[in-house]
């Protein structure tokens, strides 16, 4: 029994955090709101260079062939820095889906490019209809009932949708059936789609933890510095208790998220239950932290000039995406209570 990440996993995480600290400061996130494409390709390339983008791509296709557990701490860092870009879709969902289910042809067409950073993938699963970054991706992995298909994005008709998070470029995607390449269908198609959904939910949970940890840290800093009534507001017990509760909720969401990644990595029969427990708790915890962070900052956090709002909005987006807390609690209830 050892419920902790390995030293290697943590070292890799730290290296990614260092890179993001340099290459993904808040003005880059802000740039993703304002810029036409919403992205900085050199940031993606730098992550690919480190092996992050291709982390889950099998070695035979030029990746690292690592698992959800290796990816998890890195996703938390991308959350902490509010990294803009479809790493969740490409690395956490599309790459393993292709690696496990696609024919040699399809796999060869997309996976080496994902590993090298030249191919960006995105996904549209049932219940997850708004596709992030389709405008800059190369391939869309989409679900239609029991069919999982790959579509080159130059064959898509995109209808833009607007997320509360200006750095999330969403659209709805349509295409002609003639343009799709079937990955898998039938009963195995359902299974693959469900697995992909669970991977996305766990990855979103990991990012939510990082986003919330960042917000809590900047709020702690803020309340220790901001003075009212002649003292730092962080000395007031009402403020202390808000923030203690943030740490409380995060502390008990973290182990569930790690456990869900473990279940995915080891293909355990409890994947669905563990995923839903994790996403329900991570969503609730992050939403709570977002609310308290805003409250404890007062009006400054209500401005778009101050950085906090970008983290708040990413949290609101990711708590709604990949199944919200109530959806996941209902799934846990179903799995526990309906024999």
């Amino acid at each position, binding site marked *: 029994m050892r419920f*902790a990440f390995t030293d290697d996993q943590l070292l890799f995480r730290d290296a990614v955090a260092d890179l993001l600290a340099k290459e993904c400061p808040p003005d880059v996130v802000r740039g993703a709101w304002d810029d036409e494409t919403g992205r900085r390709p050199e940031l993606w390339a730098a992550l690919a260079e480190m092996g992050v983008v291709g982390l889950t791509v099998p070695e035979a296709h030029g990746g690292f062939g690592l698992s959800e557990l290796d990816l998890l701490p890195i996703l938390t860092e991308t959350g902490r820095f509010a990294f803009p870009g479809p790493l969740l879709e490409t690395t956490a969902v599309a790459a393993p889906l292709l690696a496990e289910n696609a024919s040699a042809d399809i796999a060869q067409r997309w996976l080496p490019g994902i590993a090298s950073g030249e191919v960006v993938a995105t996904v549209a699963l049932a219940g997850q209809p708004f596709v992030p970054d389709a405008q800059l991706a190369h391939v869309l992995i989409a679900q239609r009932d029991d069919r999982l298909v790959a579509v080159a994005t130059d064959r898509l008709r995109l209808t833009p949708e607007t997320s509360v998070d200006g750095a999330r470029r969403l659209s709805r995607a349509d295409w002609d059936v003639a343009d799709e390449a079937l990955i898998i269908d039938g009963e195995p198609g359902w299974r693959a789609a469900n697995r992909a959904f669970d991977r996305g939910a766990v990855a979103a949970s990991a990012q939510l933890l990082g986003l919330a940890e960042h917000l809590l840290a900047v709020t702690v800093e803020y309340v220790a510095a901001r003075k009212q009534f002649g003292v730092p507001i962080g000395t007031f017990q009402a403020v202390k208790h808000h923030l*203690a509760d943030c740490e*409380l909720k995060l502390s008990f969401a973290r182990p569930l998220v790690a456990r869900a990644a473990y279940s995915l990595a080891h293909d355990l029969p409890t994947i669905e239950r563990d995923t839903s427990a994790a996403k329900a708790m991570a969503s609730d915890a992050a939403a709570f932290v977002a609310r308290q962070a805003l409250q404890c900052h007062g009006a400054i956090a209500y401005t778009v000039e101050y950085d906090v709002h970008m983290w708040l909005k990413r949290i609101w987006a990711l708590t709604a995406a990949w199944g919200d807390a109530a959806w996941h*609690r209902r799934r846990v209830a179903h799995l526990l209570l309906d024999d």
Partner: protein
Amino acid sequence: MDLNFTDAEEAFRAEARAWLEANVPHGLPSGDTREGFDLHVEWEKKLFDARWSVVSWPEEYGGRGATLWEWLIFEEEYYRAGAPQRVTQNGIFLLAPTIFEFGTDAQKSRFLPAMAAADDLWCQGWSEPDAGSDLAGIKSRAVRDDAAGGWRISGQKTWTTRGAFCNWLFGLFRTDPEAERHKGMTYLMVPLDADGVTVRGVGRLDGDEGFAEVFFDDVFVADDLVLGEVDQGWGVAMATTSSERGLTLRSPGRFCAAADRLVDLWKRRSALAASGDPAAVAAGDPALREDVAQSWIDAEAYRLATLADVTGIVEGRPQGARSSLTKIFWSELDVRLHETALALLGPSAELVDDSPSAVDGGAWMKGYQFSLSGPIYAGTNEIQRNVVAERVLGLPRK
């Protein structure tokens, strides 16, 4: 990361499970009542005879030298088998770690085996009428008696759990009235059958008798009953209270077992509702279904967080002030879980004890009332939130 136990650990689990299944008593009255207490002590003596009473202690004191992982496994099995909370817990889980850390060899061999065997029964004497959350406000004092080689104590302790049934008390007494608030206190172990001790039972909210007020009138305590250094009791006491918040007292087995019972209750209530019993209609409420799921999720989160904590402890990363997070979480989880159960019971929720229609013998209302004490004892949750804010997050004190 590896969430599997070793073969040896699984063998340990199998041995514990087999023994517990064959021996756990069912339907004992509460251990916080006079008659219940004696029956619980009998059960715990049986536990000791089979060497399951203090599995993690060294063999010389009656343990099995079990690892922290094995201890956790044992606790899981203990609660899964439906065994009751330990009436010896104040000694075994709170005083014992303090004796292991601060006690002399003579104190270890005198007190540890007798505690494990449920011969010495310990209660804790911290709180006083004017010293609750502000424990440093204690006034009970111990005055030096050089001729007799010991101390003479006077004063009053209160809210002493099972104080009326125990024969030993440990706690803090002021030995230097001139010293600053957190200094000049000494940690003493006091025999409750000594001359000058008066114990008065106080009824509890949940119907049990388990509280006591303890009065000391010039009670003699010999020098060998001082734990740690004279006047240094605060530091020793902090070790005890951090055990109370930390791992050993609140093993996840208890909450996982309670969550499993809640799931079972939901299934029974919804079967009744399906058969048309109007009293069980709450089982169809989707919000309650989600609450049941959330209770299970919370218990699982607590179990997993404990696995992470034990991993850290085993690898030399102790919890420190983070144990306050643990304390807040389990106590609030326990309250929510019982609230959900009561909501499921609808009109039956108010029935207790041997009321003919009480579900599970009224255990849910009883458990609810007990759960409400969790956010108060072991340092109130308000105090724990202060600790988290100041010592985990680093917020300014003043």
